[in-house]
């Protein structure tokens, strides 16, 4: 079993390194942001590679429940990829994390109002909201022309409805 685990770890590390390499190439050649889909290729290729490795392994050693083991290994690999992607997203878009970094960049002490105004390295809270709205519009969740926001698209409405339901189910009053 340790061997299968090492296959997963090896595939994960390979996919992450490949992803990081693609990011460097993108920034070197100044390829636009729209190429995000290309960045997911290493992760998808990783699934195929892992499947291939396991198939090779199963021809050498016989296991009980081979399909379950293959699915389990892919699940572990996907869990690693999700943690990696979410960790990157947290670094990039973490609200609380950005507050701590703003404080660090201003000698570690600031008034709450100043902190609000200088959020995101001078972006401010309004800048944060505009950025989020632009992202949501790019994803097709709502319409946004820079001045008027909305209405929501059907997919945006569905997401909002699910969020309202989940938040009320868990009795979360102060959110986001």
């Amino acid at each position: 079993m340790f061997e299968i685990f090492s296959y997963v770890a090896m595939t994960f590390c390979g996919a992450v390194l490949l992803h990081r390499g693609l990011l460097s190439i993108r920034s070197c050649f100044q390829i636009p942001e729209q190429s995000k889909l290309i960045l997911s290729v290493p992760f998808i290729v990783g699934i195929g590679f892992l499947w291939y490795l396991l198939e090779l392994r199963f021809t050498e050693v016989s296991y009980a429940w081979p399909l379950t083991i293959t699915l389990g290994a892919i699940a572990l690999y996907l869990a690693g990829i999700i943690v990696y992607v979410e960790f990157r997203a947290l670094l990039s878009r973490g609200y609380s994390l950005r507050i701590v970094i703003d404080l660090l960049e201003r000698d570690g002490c600031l008034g709450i109002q100043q902190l609000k105004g200088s959020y995101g390295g001078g972006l401010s809270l309004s800048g944060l909201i505009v950025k989020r709205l632009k992202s949501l519009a790019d994803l097709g969740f709502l319409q946004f022309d820079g001045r008027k926001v909305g209405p929501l698209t059907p997919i945006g409405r569905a997401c909002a409805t699910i969020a309202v339901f989940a938040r009320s189910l868990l009795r979360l009053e102060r959110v986001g």
Partner: protein
Amino acid sequence: MSAGIGAATFVGLHVLWWRCSASNNPRIGLLFVLAIIGVAVSFTVGILVCEIVDEARWALLWIDVLLVVLYFFLYAGIVRSVSLTLLTHLRQGGHQSLELQSIIDEYSTSSRFEDRIRLMHESGFVKVSGEFVILTKKGRLLAQSAKGMSRLLGTVLEG
């Protein structure tokens, strides 16, 4: 099947606990404990009912790990996502569009920013002294680590 039963137990316990004792603190530690209970249930069902043997037990654990990871990130989004909050705000407006400034005003005047500061204060990353927010040693370490990780992973700390 056993992974599904474990996941259902975890989600069921989570909903039940959160409904019985509401809090605005994300309570990730408690959620982690509930996840372990879910995994234990999944294992018990797997071994006793489905009679899963040796290596397949590891596979079951890995499937459980994936489900728990997925749920944790889904929950983090539900609790803290600014984008989701904006979507729910717009949903209240029905099929009409809203002025950007009204959304900014609503968000800026709400206590969400102060809530974040309070949670970070409770976690020991900052200290609040009157109107001032002071970065603690722990917070400084977090910010410096985040900057280092961001360089390593090639992300921009936009916020």
